[in-house]
């Protein structure tokens, strides 16, 4: 065979080898557990714990369920790391009547394992009290004593089963825990602190002294009293007391009626009623205008009689510079035509914030009669925790959310018409509420202060510092009124700083374009605000 022939044969072989794809198979197992003790609380986020056994290659996990409007919701985790066994925690929102949840494990197009959980048969519409290391007779006493006030279910969980995600505690009203010592991991501790700040109740049974107790890991200082407050929540340290007596527990755990239990927790504060979707200026003709002007200059250039390649290059250079400046200006106003609406509710203290984001990508699918594959939407949340997700349109499926990490802090509540509603929690990077409030006020476009009785706005008079009372509710506030009203009911004794503007620490990027504004709420004790 000649030299050329050998090269041809080699290239031909390369071409053929690439066409034929190798297929590899592995024995795998998957176990799925939703809620606590098999029960889920309807209308709340519930933890989902997925355990993958066997070699996890570069496959993917898909969660399929229906939202409260019966629209399909798909979340997806790409498994990039190869290893033996993996645990994924993914809080899922359960509808009022429960939902059917499908978990699928794919290797490429091949379905490796599938599991279906029907939560409709295991819903509990009442207060859920978690018990950790509590003897069964005491559990029964807790359930019996509190059920006289409200429907209550106690669920015994192991320490390791306590969710690492803050969202996983959404449906938990109280935790009764025999002090295990400082054994919880940082993610669990952070999540419990945030849950407490939002109004959770933790009862530590038989607390260990000093640094050998869980309090040393959970709190910045060792407690000096039997009951201490943490944000809107409280921690009770119960040493020796009559655990078998019903009355004892009724004094320790106070539960509000389940229906009106407005704790600062995502399912209770982010309600859609009254949320006005205000799309940003889309201006789809603006990019076209630039292209048209560019083309017209180019056409004039192409009609010039003389040879003019250098003119073409000069034209390209100037047009590129203009395109760069123009596109930067345009991108800030456009977000690919999306409506992005973000709400943030800060937890008291420095316990992070809950976020709710509605992203409605408008320009997917058909445009001027051409039906082409819509592009995935890239959304990045940049704080101390970088997380990127892709809102990706499937060919025969609706938009789905693709997580960049298995330790995700953002999850899909619902698949709105044409868009997606994401909820999540982010930690705070500022030391104190005062610093956070200062930072929010400085960057706010609109801000107001409600002290429980009256509204105040920043004083416009340069000579007068501080806030001035106003007779009427601010107009911009009325637009968001129902949402804020719900929040006010949570704790009437608190003051609330409310506003619209940039958030100090978190940066949202939709298609690499920073989303500058959000509605936010910061609870502040009146004395702190003053």
């Amino acid at each position, binding site marked *: 065979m000649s030299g050329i022939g050998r090269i041809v044969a080699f*290239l031909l072989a390369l*071409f053929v080898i690439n*066409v034929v794809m190798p297929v590899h198979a592995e024995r795998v197992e998957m176990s799925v557990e939703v809620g606590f003790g098999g029960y889920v609380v309807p209308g709340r986020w519930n933890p989902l714990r997925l355990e993958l056994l066997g070699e996890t290659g570069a496959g993917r996990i898909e969660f399929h369920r229906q939202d409260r409007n019966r629209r399909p919701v798909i979340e997806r985790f790409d498994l990039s790391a190869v290893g033996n066994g993996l645990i994924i925690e993914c809080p899922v929102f359960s509808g009022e009547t429960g939902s059917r949840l499908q978990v699928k494990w794919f290797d490429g197009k091949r379905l490796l394992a599938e599991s279906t959980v029907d939560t409709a048969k295991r819903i509990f519409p009442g207060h859920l009290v978690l018990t950790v290391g509590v003897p069964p007779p005491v559990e029964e006493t807790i359930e019996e004593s509190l059920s006289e006030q409200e429907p209550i279910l106690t669920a015994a969980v192991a320490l390791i089963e306590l969710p690492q995600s803050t969202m996983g505690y959404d449906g938990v009203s109280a935790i009764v825990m025999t002090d295990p010592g400082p054994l919880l991991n940082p993610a669990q501790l952070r999540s419990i602190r945030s849950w407490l700040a939002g109004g959770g109740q933790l009862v530590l049974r038989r607390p260990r002294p000093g640094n050998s107790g869980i309090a040393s890991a959970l709190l910045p200082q060792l407690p000096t009293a039997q009951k201490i407050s943490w944000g809107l929540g409280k921690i009770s340290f119960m040493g020796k007391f009559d655990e078998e007596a019903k009355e004892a527990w009724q004094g320790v755990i106070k539960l509000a009626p389940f229906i009106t239990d407005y704790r600062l927790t995502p399912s209770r504060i982010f309600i859609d009623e009254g949320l006005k979707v205000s799309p940003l200026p889309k201006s789809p003709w603006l990019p*076209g205008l630039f292209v048209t002007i*560019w083309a017209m200059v180019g056409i004039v250039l192409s009609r010039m009689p003389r040879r003019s390649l250098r003119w073409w290059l000069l034209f*390209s250079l100037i047009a590129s510079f203009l395109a760069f400046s123009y596109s930067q200006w345009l991108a800030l106003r456009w977000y690919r035509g999306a409506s992005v609406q973000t709400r943030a509710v800060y937890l008291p203290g420095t316990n992070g914030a809950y976020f709710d984001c509605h992203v409605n990508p408008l320009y997917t699918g058909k445009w001027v009669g051409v039906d082409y594959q819509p592009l995935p939407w890239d959304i990045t949340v940049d704080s101390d925790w970088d997380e990127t997700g892709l809102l990706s349109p499937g060919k025969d499926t609706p938009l789905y959310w693709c997580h960049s990490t298995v330790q995700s802090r953002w999850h899909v509540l619902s698949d709105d018409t044409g868009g997606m509603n994401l909820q999540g929690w982010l930690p705070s990077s500022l030391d104190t509420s005062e610093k956070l409030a200062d930072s929010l006020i400085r960057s706010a476009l609109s801000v107001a202060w409600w002290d429980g009785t009256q509204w105040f706005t920043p004083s416009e008079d340069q000579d007068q510092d501080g806030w001035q009372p106003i007779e009427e509710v601010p107009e911009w506030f009325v637009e968001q009124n129902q949402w804020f009203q719900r929040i006010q009911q949570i704790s009437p004794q608190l003051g609330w700083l409310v506003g619209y503007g940039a958030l100090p620490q978190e940066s949202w990027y939709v298609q690499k374009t920073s989303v500058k504004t959000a509605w936010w709420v910061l609870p502040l004790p009146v004395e702190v605000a003053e």
Partner: protein
Amino acid sequence: MISIIWSELRMWEQVYAQKTLGTVLRFVAVITAISIVRPEMFFSGAIFSGLYLGLLAGKHTWSPAKPWEWTGRGGLPPLLVIGGKIIAVVLICLVHLIVLTPVAILTSALWGIPAWVLAYAVLAILMGAATTSAWAMMGHYLSLGNGSLADLFAVGWFAATLIVPPFRLVNPLWLAWVILNPEKTPLFGKGIIMGLALLFLTIFAIGILMRNERGYPFERR
């Protein structure tokens, strides 16, 4: 080879630059202006522009001499001649892409297209232009210089790779979709390797066809 590249570029610049640059600019402007400079539309426009340039180059539209003239009179090896012409069309295509840069910048900023996607797209466009040029050259050669098969071969390879699923990886249009779809992006490298393999196969095939033709095949026949 350098003299072949230089002569192709000189002739294109002197006679055809205004025409091809104007045509590409108009085509891309229309297709992007009506689609809010959507990247898939911009990439499609740029790819079809590359195919157009590849076809013209494959038919030796701006060549001062045909390949068999270079091999016959100049005594140059066929592979060198074909290689030179392919490199010339790649360079000409690059000049057109420079003119399209403002729209690429606009597309990139508005739709969040990272620089690496643009770089991949440039690779796909150049590969598409080069492969089209090679197939058109083969058609041109087989039709004894009258170019009747050039169009058929140029459109044929593109259509065949688009229609037959296993060969889609080498189709520039499909590659553009691959790079805009993060799930599929890992396939791009494979597509480029296969595309280059196909390009070199085509070049070698023309080389083999021309190997025994020393001089002026069409005059001899």
